[in-house]
């Protein structure tokens, strides 16, 4: 099989399009590059969706944690503590077992006038179940980051807002929120990188890779198992992830310049990337 044919057969293998059988012997470099790259689609899927949904949840959590009312504050504090204090790996296992325990075929929800059958089976699939875990996890981590930023907003800014007669929603939207986002952005970039790295855990926890549609690390370890040679698939994976990280840094850097556009050049916050890999 030539390389072009390999790409045609396996480029979308991870989402179920193309050849069904994975190559079994005589692995070429091209096959490894294509399959690991196709697995990367899942990493991007998990990362992007969890970040998008998690962003809003994180802001809510941060606001709740900063709230003066303790009935609002305590749940947010516990949420952050539980998701930041325990390993993601255990969270995946726990979530998977919970979803499996839910009745297999769905249960009937009686709404009085009509009955709805709630299908719960899809939760045990990685695309939904793992996404929920990652979403909650990133919401907790980012919530803590935003909470920290919320507390470091300069006092003068808020006083100025009061002096100009801002209050309530307008004050939040025009002053608090943009400043918080600006202060939190460098750490949030790290969190994003970190989340993309964490997506590799999905298929190594409880969630099974259905029909061998796995993520990049799943295929890389498949090759390493079959060839007993770790020196080819893992560096390929590493290369892909470095590219992905560079993309994330690029995109977040653009947002960062936009958030800081009103500041004089020398006071702008530089994006310092210090990824911490494990959560």
């Amino acid at each position, binding site marked *: 099989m030539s390389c072009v044919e390999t790409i045609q057969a396996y480029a979308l293998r991870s989402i179920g399009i193309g050849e069904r059988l994975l190559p079994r*012997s005589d*692995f070429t470099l091209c096959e490894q590059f294509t399959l690991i790259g196709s697995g990367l689609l899942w990493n991007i899927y998990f990362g992007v969706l969890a970040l998008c949904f998690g962003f809003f949840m994180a802001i809510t959590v941060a606001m709740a944690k900063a709230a003066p009312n303790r009935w609002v504050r305590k749940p947010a504090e516990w949420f952050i*503590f*539980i998701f930041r*204090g*325990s*390993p*993601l*790996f*255990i*969270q995946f*296992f*726990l979530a998977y*077992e*919970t979803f*499996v*325990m839910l009745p297999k075929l769905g249960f009937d929800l009686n709404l009085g006038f009509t009955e709805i059958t709630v299908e719960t089976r899809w939760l045990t699939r990685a695309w939904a179940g793992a996404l929920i875990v990652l979403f909650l996890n990133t919401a907790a981590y980012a919530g803590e980051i935003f909470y920290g930023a919320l507390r470091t907003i300069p006092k003068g800014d808020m006083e100025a807002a009061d002096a100009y007669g801002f209050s309530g929603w307008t004050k939040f939207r025009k002053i608090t929120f943009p400043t918080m986002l600006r202060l939190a952005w460098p750490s949030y970039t790290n969190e994003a990188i970190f989340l993309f*790295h*964490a997506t*590799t*855990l999905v298929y*190594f926890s409880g969630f099974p890779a259905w029909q061998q549609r796995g993520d990049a*690390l799943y295929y*890389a*370890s498949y090759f*390493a198992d*079959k*060839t*007993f*040679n*770790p*020196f080819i698939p*893992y560096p390929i*994976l*590493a290369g892909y*992830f*470095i590219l992905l*990280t560079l993309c994330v840094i690029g995109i977040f850097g653009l947002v960062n310049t936009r958030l800081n556009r009103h500041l004089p050049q020398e006071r702008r916050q530089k994006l310092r990337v*210090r*990824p*911490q*890999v*494990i*959560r």
Partner: protein
Amino acid sequence: MAFYASFGTVMLLLAVTAPAALLFGFGGAVAARSHFAPLRWFGKGYTAVVRGVPDIAFFLFFVIALDQAFEWLRHQVKCPDWDMPVRQGSDFVVCAAAKLPLSSSPQWVHEVYGFAIAVLTFAIVFGAFAANVLYGAMRAVPRAQTETAEAYGLSRRQTFWRILVPQMWVYALPGLSNLWMILIKATPLLFLLGVEDIVYWARELGGSKTQVYSYPHPDWRLYYFLALLVFYLALTRVSEVVLTRLTNRLSRGQATVAGEAQRRAA
């Protein structure tokens, strides 16, 4: 019983890995500061590569890579007159005397070997993070301190060991405590390295039937994992409290804001 012992495994791993990673980190930081260029490149490259790639990929990679590296070295030493290539297609073949652990050795040797490889892997990965923290901490020690040492006529080596190293810890502590938290949360990954740790036993004991036994109870894995979750939450919480105390203790008498605040309060 083995389930409870596996908590010990996790604690042992933490206890062994933390100093080992610190040692690797110290080496890496010293290498990155070196005046000898290749050594400096090595130190910087080490931290840069490990930090840019998902850790789990490293865990999977190093376990096989280290194992093969050891076997290959022993192969070179013990069987010099072996004429076949080591890699035959998709097999990795070394002579029987070079197998590690020897196929004739008892079960516990295999287990200890697996654990040792896991510790080494953890130390390599976390050493890179520690190297980064320590490198930053060494640069954070005020320049005036080392200048004073030079003025007193201390040599480079003396300045390093007597001035820089004792003072850097307070700067390194926030980073190191963060790293400790991350290390705690990385321990369940032991399961992937093939060590029979708590995740393994939670899966085995919780399931209603395994390869070996069939338990009378239904699927209890959920409760086992819940217990693990609580265990880890307690562990992180306790370390958080201890580390805060340690930071306070170390800040005493240091030329930092925290140290100054303590002096005023006293």
